[in-house]
Structure formats: structure tokens, C-alpha cells
């Protein structure tokens, strides 16, 4: 029991241990509710809901009617769970910085590269997230929905996606970090 508590309150797990946990979660998702773990699709469901309420004409297209139907889907509920899971994870390891001074920009490496300003983090986060969500829409999933969930079913799309992701990720990191790479 003591050992379990010690493991739970550890800040950083071995990636292999956490990987096994995620693998089991992935199996259970298929086994219990015949679904795949996905994160980006949920945002599109929510965006579709919002869009249909505000501008129903603009959102009355093939994509939002058939590919990503709006509504509270399994993925949306999963995402709520992910939020609380992350919160519990941070709370148990004592790194929860809710409401603290530099909570929005607490990553030392980020500060060294881009500067300590919080607004920079917000802007870059927002722009990057738009790129992420848009490209996840093109590819048909994100890291969890396509690369991990597709990969575990041995779908070719997942491995194409991982290859593309690493190629451009490495190039982007190379440009951002230049001689510090």
C-alpha cells in the first residue's frame, strides 16, 4: 500500500510504465465501448455545435454533417476525463500551479528560448493549436486519435502520420533552436 502511494505521488514515471497504462486504457476503450481514444475530434464536435448555433448556413456542409457530426460525443466526455486526470496527476505529484504567479508560463526551457512574457506563450499556444487542430482535421486524427489508436490497430494511416509528424517536427525544432539544436 505504501509502495502504491509512493508511486502515485512520484512526479515522473518511467515512460514504459505509463505506456503500459495507456495501452491498457486503449484496449479497454475498444473492449468496453467500441471506441478509439481521440482528442482532436472532440473539439471539432464542440466547434460544430457552436457553429450550428451561431451560423447554421456556414456550418451546413459535408464535413460538419457527416464527417464530424456536432454534439456531445464519447470523445467529448473522454476529454473532460483527460482534463481531470491531468489535474489529479499534477495534484498528486505536488506540481499543481493553479492560480500561482507564473502558472501560465512555467516551463524553464520555453522561457529561455522565447522569453519570460506570458502573452507570448498565449499567442504561440493559440497559433500552434490552430495549426494542430486544422492538420488533425486533414489527417483524420491527432497523436492520440490517429497515431496511437490507429497504430494499435495497425492502420497504415497512423504510420504515415507519424512519419510526417516527425519530419516537420524536427525541421521546426531545427529552425526555432538554430545553433542551440
Amino acid at each position, binding site marked *: 500500500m505504501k509502495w502504491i502511494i509512493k508511486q502515485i505521488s512520484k512526479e515522473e*514515471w518511467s*515512460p*514504459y510504465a*505509463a*505506456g*503500459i*497504462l*495507456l*495501452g*491498457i486504457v*486503449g484496449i*479497454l476503450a475498444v473492449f*468496453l465501448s*467500441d*471506441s478509439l481514444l481521440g482528442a482532436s475530434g472532440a473539439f471539432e464536435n464542440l466547434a460544430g455545435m457552436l457553429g450550428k448555433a451561431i451560423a447554421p448556413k456556414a456550418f451546413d456542409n459535408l464535413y460538419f454533417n457527416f464527417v464530424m457530426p456536432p454534439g456531445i460525443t*464519447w470523445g467529448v466526455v*473522454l*476529454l*473532460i476525463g*483527460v482534463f*481531470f*486526470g*491531468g489535474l*489529479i*496527476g499534477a495534484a498528486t505529484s505536488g506540481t499543481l500551479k493553479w492560480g500561482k504567479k507564473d502558472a501560465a508560463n512555467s*516551463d*524553464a*526551457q520555453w522561457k529561455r528560448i522565447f522569453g519570460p512574457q506570458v502573452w507570448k506563450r498565449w499567442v504561440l499556444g493559440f497559433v*500552434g*493549436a*490552430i*495549426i*494542430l487542430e486544422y*492538420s488533425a*482535421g*486533414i*489527417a*483524420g*486524427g*491527432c*497523436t492520440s*486519435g490517429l497515431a*496511437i*489508436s*490507429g497504430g494499435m*490497430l495497425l*492502420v*497504415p*494511416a*497512423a504510420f504515415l*502520420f507519424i*512519419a*510526417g*509528424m516527425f519530419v*516537420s*517536427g*524536427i525541421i521546426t*525544432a531545427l529552425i*526555432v533552436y538554430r545553433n542551440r*539544436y
Partner: protein
Amino acid sequence: MNFVIALFLGVFFGFALNKVGLTKYHKIVNQFRFTDMTVLKFMMTALVVAMIGLYGLRGLGLITFPAVPNTYIVGNLVGGLLFGVGMALTGY
């Protein structure tokens, strides 16, 4: 009932991501700089465990696979190429 399962699994999903440090910017971007291999170790372990489990369960006839993500080579590749840019910038 399905939603309760989703919430429950989501909590464990988020917990695993947080504990391995994938909620942190430097973990993600250092993978692309190859100074920290956490992302690959984590992803590949999850893939192998889930593959064995899923194909095993299917072999036993306990599950059928859900609708798998479609493969369309250009879309997946272009999406992946754009995705990497966002990933290296935000550390998602």
C-alpha cells in the same frame, strides 16, 4: 453508461500523460531535438501493449474492431507534416 466509461478512461488517460510529462513543453520539443526520447518510449510501449491486447482479444473472438481511421496517403502525410509544426511550437 458509455459516458461513464469515457469519463473513467479519460481520467486514466490524462493521468498517464501527466505522469510521463507529456503535458510539458520541453518533453515534446526535446523529442524533436533527440535529447529526450520520452515521447517515443511512451508511445511505442502503449502501441505494443495495445496491439498485443487487441489482436489477442480479437483472436479469442471477444471483440470486433471499431471503424478504423481511413487511409488516404496524401491527406495523412500532409496532415502529419502540418501537425509536426504545431506540435514543435506548442508542445502539445
